[in-house]
């Protein structure tokens, strides 16, 4: 395929993905807005007012960047996992597999679909947060870069989950038993400074720690980890997940007989 044809194919996949989640907006966009509103009310306003300051900010201000990042992570992940597994389940993925579209275009199509949903939900959740607190942006470039890299990373994780899933249960097991614990233990609700040294060190193996702290740095200018280290770790995770996803597509594992 020429580069122009590949560009058309990419646009087609992205358009299809966006249409899919907009068609079922009540399942894809609305739940995060409602869940995050509850988090803001419970953790930010009710409990947060008794906690006091964290990292030099009110608890509400501290927790908002983590909650926005949580929405990005779960949505970019869920979008690709459910869409790709759904395509596998109803065999419509064969439309792509029999076509001349290169594997990397297919992969980027799904990634961009996941990123757009992650970003859209982030905008909604951020807008909702404005009802509860004032937001400041310390470094807009870092905010944008972290949002994009994080949604790419978790879209890739979602893709890998979609490839390996055999049933719809399999695409809910990982978010429930892996992603949610990582999010909760990734510094969304607390600073790593509160943890004993050993657990603070263990937490550094959690990719969520880097994305949450990098984003919090972009918003508030505070972070539990060095921002350069955080970016390096996110980029390393992205490269590894991308190469593995591409390998899965090229080899046809779980996709071709």
């Amino acid at each position, binding site marked *: 395929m020429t580069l122009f044809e590949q560009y058309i194919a990419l646009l087609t996949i992205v358009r299809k993905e966006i249409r899919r989640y907009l068609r079922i907006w009540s399942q894809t966009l609305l739940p995060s807005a409602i869940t995050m509103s509850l988090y803001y009310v419970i953790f930010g306003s009710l409990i947060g007012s008794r906690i006091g300051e964290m990292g030099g900010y009110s608890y509400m201000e501290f927790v908002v960047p983590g909650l926005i990042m949580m929405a990005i992570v779960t949505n970019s992940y869920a979008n690709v996992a459910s869409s790709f597994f759904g395509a596998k389940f109803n065999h419509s993925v064969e439309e792509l597999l029999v076509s001349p*579209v290169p594997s990397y275009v297919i992969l980027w199509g799904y990634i961009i679909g996941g990123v757009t949903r992650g970003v859209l939900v982030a905008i909604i959740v951020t807008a909702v947060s404005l009802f509860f607190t004032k937001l400041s942006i310390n470094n807009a470039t870092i905010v944008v870069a972290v949002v994009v890299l994080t949604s790419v990373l978790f879209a890739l994780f979602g893709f890998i989950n979609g490839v390996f899933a055999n049933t719809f249960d399999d695409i809910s097991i990982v978010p429930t038993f892996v992603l949610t614990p990582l999010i909760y233990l990734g510094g969304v609700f607390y600073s790593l400074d509160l943890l004993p040294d050993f657990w603070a060190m263990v937490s550094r193996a959690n990719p969520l720690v880097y994305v949450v702290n990098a984003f919090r740095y972009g918003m508030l200018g505070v972070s539990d980890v060095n921002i350069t280290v955080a970016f390096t770790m996110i980029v390393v995770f992205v490269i590894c997940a991308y190469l593995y996803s591409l390998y899965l597509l090229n080899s*046809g594992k779980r996709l071709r007989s």
Partner: protein
Amino acid sequence: MTPALKIQGLRKTYQNGFVALDGIDLEVAQGDFFALLGPNGAGKSTTIGIISSLVTKSGGKVIVHGVDIDIDYPGAKKFLGIVPQEFNFNVFEKVEDILTNQAGYYGIPYGVAKERTEHYLNRLGLADKRHESARNLSGGMKRRLMIARALIHAPKLLILDEPTAGVDIEMRRAMYEFLKEINAAGTTIILTTHYLEDAEALCRNIAIINHGKIVTNRSIRELLRDLNKEVFLLDCADTLPAEIAVNGFELKRLDDHCLEVVINKGQDLTAVFRTLGDKQISVVSMRNEANRLEQMFVNLLEQSA
């Protein structure tokens, strides 16, 4: 001229050890209407799966319009349109979106894709369903949608795996008329079907596959010429006598008005008609007990077994 499809020593052994293809060779000329026949599990769908890249081969070569799939699979795929046996579209998508998306996967810009979608929706009687979810289509409409989808990028080689399964007779005929038209316009067609009378009526050349091996690969005319035995049923206006015999023929009185006649190669029916005429019995119609190709198909499968 470069063949539309050339297969050399194609082998496929699945992970469980089942040998689906045991070194098949096949050549389909450009412009041909070719039948690939065989019983269930013979290897037809595996062959199509390998050509379309949904199944990985264990060995051998597949060349589509001169492009070796091992060297340039995307290049080979551009020539191919595939209509699989099972429905494989997203049933929640709109009919027209399924077609425009498929065009997009082949790099066709949206404007052109919309025009082609319009053309095939009209041509295949789906125009009034364009905004419907695919799940709301009948079985026959879903089949036509898959044909439209396979044609949207104007492939040179169209492969249809059981396209008329579950389709009523009227729709089947209309579908075959359409296929004849696109074949006449230059598209090579490979068809697998269990309706052997359709294969006989439509196809010029044929390959029969069984247990992963090609049993025969020749023109249908040549194949039928080799048929050693045919069974005809004669419907008579007058009552047949209880005993009826014609020297050299195997006859069987099925009921008062129907006579079964077995014709061996080299025999003709003149003597039978003469005998019936002598007995003042007129024949009102005559038919093959089984489709001729079906008879040949059964014979060849028995021999290969």
